[in-house]
């Protein structure tokens, strides 16, 4: 006997965002780092900061830390990020 059953998943179409244009070079750019604030991020992002300046000659590295590492970044950080050429985030310990 045929049985009719339903799809339990959301089925909703997820709006996908266009990625920002890729940079050809990091030299002279402003790079923002959004840290989740966990214990291991201090050393990690300090190292990333150094690499960006020494190896890629970026003009400025700005570190911002979320107040809650399990929640999205605050609006202030997102607003500030509009002024950056590149953001590095989504990394934690």
């Amino acid at each position, binding site marked *: *006997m*045929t*049985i*009719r*059953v*339903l*799809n*339990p*998943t*959301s*089925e*909703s179409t997820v709006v996908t965002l266009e990625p920002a244009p890729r940079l050809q070079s990091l030299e002279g750019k402003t790079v923002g780092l959004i840290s989740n604030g966990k*214990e291991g991020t201090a050393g990690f992002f300090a190292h990333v900061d150094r690499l960006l300046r020494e190896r890629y000659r970026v003009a400025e590295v700005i570190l911002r830390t979320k107040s*809650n590492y*399990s*929640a*999205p970044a605050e609006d202030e950080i997102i607003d500030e990020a509009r002024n950056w050429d590149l953001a590095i985030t989504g990394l934690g310990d």
Partner: protein
Amino acid sequence: MSIALNSQYFDIDDSDDVQEFYHSRGWTDGFPIVPPTPEAVQACLDWVLMPPNEIIGIEPVRERTIDAEKLAINAVMAGCLPMHFPAVVSAWMAMLKDEFLLHGTTASTGGCAILVILNGPIRQEIGTRSDFNVLGSSDRATSVIGRAIRLALINILQVSPGAIDRSTLGHPGKISYCIAEDEENSNWPSLAESRDIPKEASAVTVLAACAPRQIMNEWTTKPEEILDTYAAEMRANMRNYSIWSGNYVVVMPAQHREHMRAAGWGRTEIANYLFEKARIKRSEWSTVGKGSVIRDKGDTEYCALPSPDHLLLVAAGGPAGGFGAIIPPWLGTKSQAVTVAIGACVDCEPPAAQ
């Protein structure tokens, strides 16, 4: 009966095939499911008097809408009868409050589960049990309600292991984690009453919760000594897992409750005592291998509870045995317990079939 549901449907040859169909798509927790037929799903919706597209809430981080139909499909799959569905709906309404931080709790490496605590008349209406094996498979109602929460997370929000769910370990409560308070055999106001829900109302409380940690002390009748054991377990959790204060559940079975009652101790006295006793200094981390992060804060004192009100004291458990349990929060106050009254008309008859 005309059914106007919105979900994609599949016509499958027999029930064995249904099982493999769902398993193979990652739509289960690994156990067999009840086939979510349009009739069974509609019966759940009828019970709560909701149209299929009723929005239960929106998960704010990923902006995903949770509607009644999808919840009902997952509830049926979990084994829910229509009468169980109001608790599922209300639990999801609570989980979608900002202070619950649903995305963080379900995505975290910390691996917490969502504990659902039932209070009020609905417990008896749907046949929950609050005594033997209360933190295990105590009864049909709590088993299927807890499972419905998890299946809906998996299917509606992609909280599958390795997808959104990044738990390092997880724990067995992530299959089903629902209990009902033993209000009839308790001399204190229910948990929901203590959180401003009228006694006559049914309610759910949800908490992003770690696994239970069981204690035993049947060698005293003094409240202070009994509670010292609970407090010691809370301190152990603070040392070994997370030092941050938050909503701790204390599940207290009948034997310990009787000693509390005899001494005139109620919810307030218990919470106040644990608030004072469940404290550690950061320097204690040196005893459990975490000395490297004490730094200059060794003398800083941390309390398991931000205030006595943060204790979620639940009367539950079998009649004999000097056992009890604490259930720690996932991560301090980053996710907070939420209690909501069950708003659906649980005492109404579902509408007659057309």
